[in-house]
């Protein structure tokens, strides 16, 4: 009896080990492409590489273009879906699904679509799908903030390849927003039959790459769409991997397991630059880091002299130098220098003595504690510590706290946060998007009628010259209002393998990967 039991235990153990190995083998076979990717790198004479491996910092939340706000999702969506228009590497709007368009009146734009676009499920893309996508973008949580100006209900399908897109009032950012990931065209019938959740996990687009697999927490795999109407991509598979740890993301590139790595951290740049097999590419990003004052909810920040004094007490050059070591420039306006119509403005210079005098003149109560709040990113925390020191050195009392995003967003809505370090990325690259912080009610950056009026005017003006003028004035007004003190324009830093060609860096960290080929 005892022997029998022992035998049974042995058999069960062997069975368990076998099943585990079988499990492992299955997995290996599935992702074979990933491992061949790394091994072919080691051997230069290997046959042409046909898998592109891109490593990002966080996982896409879903791939329903209207239901997420994740940059990682945007990048995958950019490869899977077509949009009406695209932006080329110089920021100009170029045709995509639409071949041409004309502005019919202030609130109507007529788009003429290609006749040869098919979704990955074989269905033809028609003007109905475009109307459906616009109407959906207007309503769904992830895209509503940007598409609420589109009038989906009155957008009119003229015929299969012609559509009149309506906006509620004249709306200049329309092309920038249509060319963003949120402007992706989804397959109406598939979305209706699958539902948003299932579609978000198994997206159907019409773009140059089609979705094949998603292993939660690990990677998303796309394959070349051989029936694509436009230029077909040069490689066969595209794999998006997630590596949260900065050092590991850089090492994966060095070891050849990845071809492109995003968000290369400051401390990893030198080792990647010194390695002949890897390159570091940096471009100014759409992101601006600033110290924002909630003057709407907090009385002690209402006086513009107080806000100006707080700005004067900050050595912005020193902060940028200490925190970013050359991977950012000192901000000279409220939005990044690569966003259109940016103007260089004179921002008050560092003068702690004058700052103190100005605070006294404004009758500021120095015992009033100033609450300074940041989210967890290392650079934001570093900035908040320096800001705290600088303000305390002129006799202010400053309390800092670090909140995670969940608590941050809740406290911001109610009861509100007085002073925050904001790191905002205007990923669409539109100046209207660049002023996002100024329209963000919960941040309470301003309640100035002139700013509100100029923001509206900028949105409604189509003509480039006029728009440039409005935004130039707006930047000046905002700077003088001291609703926030812009500190730094940060860079987007990418690491690539040296054999990767056709890489186009993106200021919004949403890469267009369709032009890439291997040497």
């Amino acid at each position, binding site marked *: 009896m005892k022997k029998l039991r022992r035998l049974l235990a042995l058999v069960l153990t062997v069975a368990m080990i076998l099943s*585990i190995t079988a*499990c*492992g*083998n299955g*997995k*290996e076979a599935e*992702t074979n492409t*990933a*491992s061949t990717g*790394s091994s072919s790198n*080691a051997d230069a004479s290997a046959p042409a590489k046909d898998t592109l491996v891109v490593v990002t910092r966080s*996982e896409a*939340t*879903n791939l329903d273009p209207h239901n997420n*706000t994740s940059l990682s999702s945007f990048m995958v969506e950019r490869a899977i879906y077509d949009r009406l228009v695209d932006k080329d590497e110089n920021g100009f709007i170029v045709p995509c699904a639409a071949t041409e368009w004309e502005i019919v009146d202030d609130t109507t734009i007529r788009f003429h679509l290609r006749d040869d676009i098919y979704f990955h499920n074989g269905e033809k893309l028609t003007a109905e799908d475009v109307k459906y996508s616009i109407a959906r973008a207007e309503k769904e*949580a992830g895209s509503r*903030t940007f598409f609420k100006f589109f009038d989906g209900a009155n957008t009119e399908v003229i015929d299969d390849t012609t559509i009149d897109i309506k906006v509620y009032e004249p709306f200049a950012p329309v092309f920038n927003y249509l060319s963003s990931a949120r402007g992706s065209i989804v397959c109406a019938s598939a979305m209706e039959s699958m539902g948003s*959740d299932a579609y*978000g*996990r198994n997206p159907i687009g019409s773009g140059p790459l089609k979705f094949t697999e998603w*292993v*939660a*927490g*690990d990677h998303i795999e796309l394959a070349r769409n051989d029936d694509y109407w436009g230029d077909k991509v040069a490689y066969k598979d595209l794999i998006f*991997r*997630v*590596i*949260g*740890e900065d*050092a*590991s993301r850089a*090492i*994966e590139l*060095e*070891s*050849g*397991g990845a071809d492109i790595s995003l968000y290369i951290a400051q401390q990893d740049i030198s080792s990647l630059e010194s390695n002949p097999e890897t390159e570091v590419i940096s471009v100014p990003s759409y992101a601006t880091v600033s110290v924002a004052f909630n003057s709407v909810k907090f009385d002690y920040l209402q006086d513009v002299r107080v806000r100006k004094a707080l700005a004067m007490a900050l050595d912005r050059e020193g902060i940028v130098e200490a925190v970013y070591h050359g991977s950012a420039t000192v901000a000279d306006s409220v939005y990044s220098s690569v966003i259109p119509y940016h103007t260089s403005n004179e921002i008050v210079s560092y003068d702690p003595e004058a700052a103190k005098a100005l605070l006294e003149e404004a009758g500021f109560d120095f015992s009033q504690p100033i609450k300074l709040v940041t989210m967890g990113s290392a650079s934001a925390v570093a900035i908040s510590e320096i800001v705290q020191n600088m303000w305390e050195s002129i006799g202010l009392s400053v309390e800092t706290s670090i909140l*995670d*995003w*969940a*608590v*941050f*967003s*809740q*406290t*911001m*809505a109610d009861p509100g946060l007085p002073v925050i370090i904001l790191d905002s990325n205007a990923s669409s690259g539109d100046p209207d998007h660049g002023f996002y912080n100024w329209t*963000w*009610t*919960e941040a309470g950056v301003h309640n100035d009628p002139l700013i509100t009026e100029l923001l509206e005017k900028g949105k409604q003006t189509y003509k480039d010259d006029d728009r440039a003028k409005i935004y130039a004035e707006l930047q000046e007004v905002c700077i003088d209002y001291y609703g926030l003190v812009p500190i730094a324009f940060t860079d987007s830093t990418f690491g690539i393998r040296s054999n990767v060609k056709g890489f186009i860096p993106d200021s919004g960290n949403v890469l267009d990967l369709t032009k890439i080929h291997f040497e």
Partner: protein
Amino acid sequence: MHKYIFKRVLMMIPVLLGVSLIIFTLLYITPGDPARQILGPDASPEAVEALREELGLNDSFGVRYANFVIGALHGDLGISYTTRLPVATEIFSRFPTTFVYALLCTIVSMIIGIPLGIISATKQYSIFDNAATTFALLGVSMPTFWLGLMLILLFSVRLDWLPASGFYGPQYWILPAMTIGMNSSAYIMRMTRSSMLEVIRQDYIRTARAKGQTEYKIVVKHALKNALIPIITVVGINFGRSLGGAIVTEQIFAIPGLGKMMVEAISARNYPVVQGGVLFIAVATSVVNLLVDILYAYIDPRLSSQYQSGKKKKALQASEVTGGTAK
């Protein structure tokens, strides 16, 4: 024995209820609103309120807890807020990875730890003993994130022998398993050493030597077998702990395991995933503990006699008194 197992399984019920109540209460008092988290900071209060209602976040603590427990009893752990997939699906898509990883780490730590422990105990105070003890000290003291990065730098970047991160096949398993294995092997080595030292001084070892038994048999059959209980306890605890996911190493090696999932879920206030994950880990740990206890009985006949039902036990005791079954 069966009765004992049945009793232990029954005892898991209050443990799991307790664990679920604690995690539920902790999440309840943690600041941060999942609805606001999902909709973003510029969502209107009405939209947030509507979503709170839909997710059942406005119900009282008791109602929410009861709903969770009733759901869990039906095998329904809820829907993840971020991916909109059932929590059970999420957990089981990660569990094989974590299980393989935990098993590998345990095997590696045993392969290194037990032989080292035996040798340093049998050759106490020799150079080898000192070297092994130093290794153990190093293994315990080296932080896993540092050791992991160093191993990657050496084997992936310098030597280009092994892939740096991912979990796609045997060659990917080596570095992460070594990282954790080094660390826990140190504990196992120290436990083996002290437990062996205790046994080696016993009279029956001397008897075995006296009757001319080979040294190998003395160490493995007489000494090690009797020293195994504390070693297995440590191995079991390590394995149970690894099943909960190794957060740091999973992060460094980009392993899509339970630990990584839990960390992400906590920062997103993804309540269903956190609750379901903790509950699952509690079950897994309890089961491992139970298995370890059963294993004791196989190794040590004295214990197995205690597990016997009352009647048998009495009979056994009686026979022991008369010397009937004494070995």
